[in-house]
């Protein structure tokens, strides 16, 4: 291989633009708090990698990278993040003694060593893939895969199928109680109704944002009796405390009196009607900035609501997600 590969300026520019971005994106792994942010940022890194692959005369891999990693793997990650709780942020405080120091030393050591090795190693002069990619890169790769590597390739097929089956088996959950069909659901609902007399036990919850003034999904609906129905807002928004409840809205709907009374309207403990579940009116004020004043008006009541809300929402959220 006498032919010397010369990297084009364009490639250099591409590299110097992408590389810092990739490193930054990767650093999100270390410093970002929300998994969703990390996942998105890693997806970006992977797209950038795909670009680099193409620059490295591996267009087939570049495409595969986008399809497999960005398209499949990272999306799978996102799904799982949604499953286990998109809201969960992670504390970055270290719990294992000395772990952080070991990580820093080990990481720096790895960086130093790899850089030292690759920079100090003497490589043969680069050849480039011009010759190998004569019949286009996918063809070249395909010749190898279906030639030398046909057996491993077949094995990977088996591996993938096994993995799919394995995932099924792993995430399969054995039924503990009897199957609950439509009839059972109805009977349960009616039983709850008979017990509590709450209408929401039988009817489906109203959708959010039914007023003329604000139609957004973060605005809880009002019941016929005038109180807000927290359950009308999606669980995600509720959990994140993004339910809209400014003072104005409260005033318009005459909620102030209700807030002052501090009385819960619905019992929310019934698991059977998770979707229909409602909460106390007071709870609506919990994390909304707009409700600060109202909250201050009745600290005891809001405390109580806080606790209830926290206690109820997290298991319910999980259950709802899994279904």
């Amino acid at each position, binding site marked *: 291989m006498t032919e010397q590969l010369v990297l084009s300026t364009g490639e250099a520019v591409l590299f110097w633009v992408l590389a810092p971005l990739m490193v930054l994106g990767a650093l999100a792994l270390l410093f970002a708090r929300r998994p969703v942010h990390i996942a998105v940022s890693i997806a970006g890194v992977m797209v950038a990698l795909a670009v680099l692959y193409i620059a490295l005369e591996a267009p087939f891999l570049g495409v595969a990278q986008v399809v497999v990693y960005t398209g499949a793997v990272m999306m799978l990650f996102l799904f799982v993040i949604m499953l286990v709780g998109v809201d969960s942020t992670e504390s970055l405080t270290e719990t*294992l003694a000395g*772990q952080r120091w*070991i*990580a820093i*030393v*080990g*990481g720096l*050591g*790895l960086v130093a*060593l790899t850089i030292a*090795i690759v920079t100090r190693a003497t490589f043969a002069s680069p050849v480039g893939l011009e010759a190998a990619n004569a019949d286009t890169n996918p063809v070249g790769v395909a010749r190898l895969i279906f030639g030398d590597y046909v057996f491993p390739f077949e094995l990977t097929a088996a591996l993938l199928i096994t993995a799919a089956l394995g995932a099924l088996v792993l995430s399969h959950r054995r039924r503990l109680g009897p199957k609950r069909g439509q009839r059972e659901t109805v009977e349960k609902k009616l039983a709850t109704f008979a017990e509590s007399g709450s209408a929401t036990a039988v009817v489906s919850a109203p959708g959010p944002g039914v007023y003329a003034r604000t139609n957004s999904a973060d605005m809880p609906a009002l019941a016929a009796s005038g109180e807000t129905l927290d359950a009308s807002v999606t669980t995600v928004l509720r959990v994140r405390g993004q339910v809209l409840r400014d003072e104005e809205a409260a005033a318009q709907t005459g909620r102030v009196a209700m807030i002052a009374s501090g009385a819960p309207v619905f019992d929310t403990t019934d698991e059977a009607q998770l979707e229909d579940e409602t909460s106390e009116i007071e709870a609506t004020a919990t994390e909304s900035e707009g409700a600060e004043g109202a909250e201050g008006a009745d600290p005891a009541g809001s405390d109580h609501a806080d606790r209830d809300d926290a206690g109820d929402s997290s298991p319910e959220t999980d259950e709802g997600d899994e279904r």
Partner: protein
Amino acid sequence: MQDTPLTNLAWLLIAIPLASAAVLLVGGRRTNAWGHWLGVVAAAAAALLGIGILIEMLGLPEAERIHDLHLFSWIPAGDLSVDAGLLVDPLSMTFVLLITFVGALIHVYSVAYMEHDENRRRFFAYLNLFVAAMLVLVLADSYALLFVGWEGVGLASYLLIGFWNQRTEYAVAAKKAFVMNRVGDMGMLIAMMLMFASIGAVDFETVFAAAEGTNEGILTATGLMLVLAACGKSAQFPLQAWLGDAMAGPTPVSALIHAATMVTAGVYLIVRSAPVFEGAPTAQLVAAIIGAITLLFGAIVGCAKDDIKKTLAASTMSQIGYMVLAAGLGPIGYAFAIFHLVTHGFFKAGMFLGAGSVMHGMGDEVNMRRFGALRRSMQITWITFGAGWLAILGIPPFSGFWSKDKIIEAAFVGEGWQPWVFGPIALLGAGITAFYMSRLFFMTFHGKARWKESEDSANESDKDLPVQHPHESPLLMTVPMIVLAVGSVALGGLLAIGDTFTHWLEPVTGHVEHHDPVIAIPVLIGATIAIVLAGAFIAWRQYAASAVPVTPPEGSVLTRAARVDLYQDAVNEAVFATPGARVTEVLTEADTTVVDGAARGLGSGAVGLGTWWGRLQTGFVRSYASIMVVGVVLAVVVVLATRV
């Protein structure tokens, strides 16, 4: 060479009793009914065959009386090759006859003596086994085969001493006998090692032929080792301690094994090994010294014992001391040693049987202080025992006179200090023997009865005495006693007059010119008889003419020492047993703590190390990952560092 059909059948001598023993042991209870008669028949058949061979041998010219019967190749192991073969010559035939004849008599005696023992069949099996083993011992044509019989009789002795092993002390006595014999056997083994290393063979023919040209040091060592072996088997000093305890066995056993035959094997060994001793005067001298010591030792112990069997055992020890002394004197003594051995075999066996008869009549009592005046109730026993008594005393013309007197004479032969030491000792021994044997005789058969016929005795002083019903023993017991008594009376004279016996043994021991002792023979005979009579008289005065206390008096220092066998057990205990037990204890402890402890220490060390390392196993995946990362970094650093 004349045809010798019977001699060629000599192996039957061994095979018959052996087969009988096997039948009795393997047959088990099924043979209980007739087993003892099979034993008797086997012994008698061997005796008859022995007599047949003797007659055949007497018909041969002297030079042709030695036959070596090759049986089979026993240990063909290259450098060492031992054949099993029988040496039939006058010496071995003497023993064969003694063993089979006395043995057969004692078998007969035992039929009655052991009548009430449920294991009588087993007893006869052991007796037959003993006879077979003893015959192997005396008929063997090599030291190796002799050793088979040597240990075989030890085994039989062990089994018979421990025949009543439900009593622990009897079992201990049996074990003691075997182990002390084994100490002697070490000597035998070492002697054979020496022969093999220097001569390359262990059969009599080769060894004796080569002995002349062998270095005296080796011969001396061999001789000393043979003497050690003889000491073990013949209960000679310092390995004498087992014999007294061996009286735990039934009395016929004591008569056959521990008086007439087995214990004399040591004498046989020395006489048989004459060519070795010829080249080893030091070993000879040692043998003579040991004989002299034991002679006195046994005699002194015999004076103090109250147990009739133990007194006889001490006497046996002493008499064998005479024989070993004679054998140690060299060629002049060999024939007399064997002669005394034969006569002793008769009269001592007779006395043991007599003692057994006394015990039989007295409810197994062995304490002579509980006897007395048994003459009236046991006439035959008294007479036969009396014959033996007179024989051992050496009163002419009883057997003992002819044999013992010759030994005393021989002890006075020689140069330098030796005749002046051995002679007087032998003479003194004769006197002491006369004392204690007379003591035994008088305490048992004469004096006042120290028992009573019935509870309502008129005499006030009899109150504490035990009730006994002494009676004469049945015919099966008395007949053997009578036969042996006849032997005690007549055998000595029969064989001694005209030196018949000495001539008979000459093919083996060689012809010896007559030597004059340092003191004239008639003087010696007179002195011997005088000292013997004096001893007997003292005993008569003390034990027949005056009352014998039922409880032993405290006695002098010597008496007390003699009662405990001159502290032989205490010495053994202090020198061997206690330190041995201590060593065993310490080593057993050390084996678990030190040797095994080291191994276990390795184990627990590994466990400790593992536990320590195990702390790294926090269970946190991230810890493991960090270990991996650090490991990778370190590994790469090491690789790079070694490359630089």
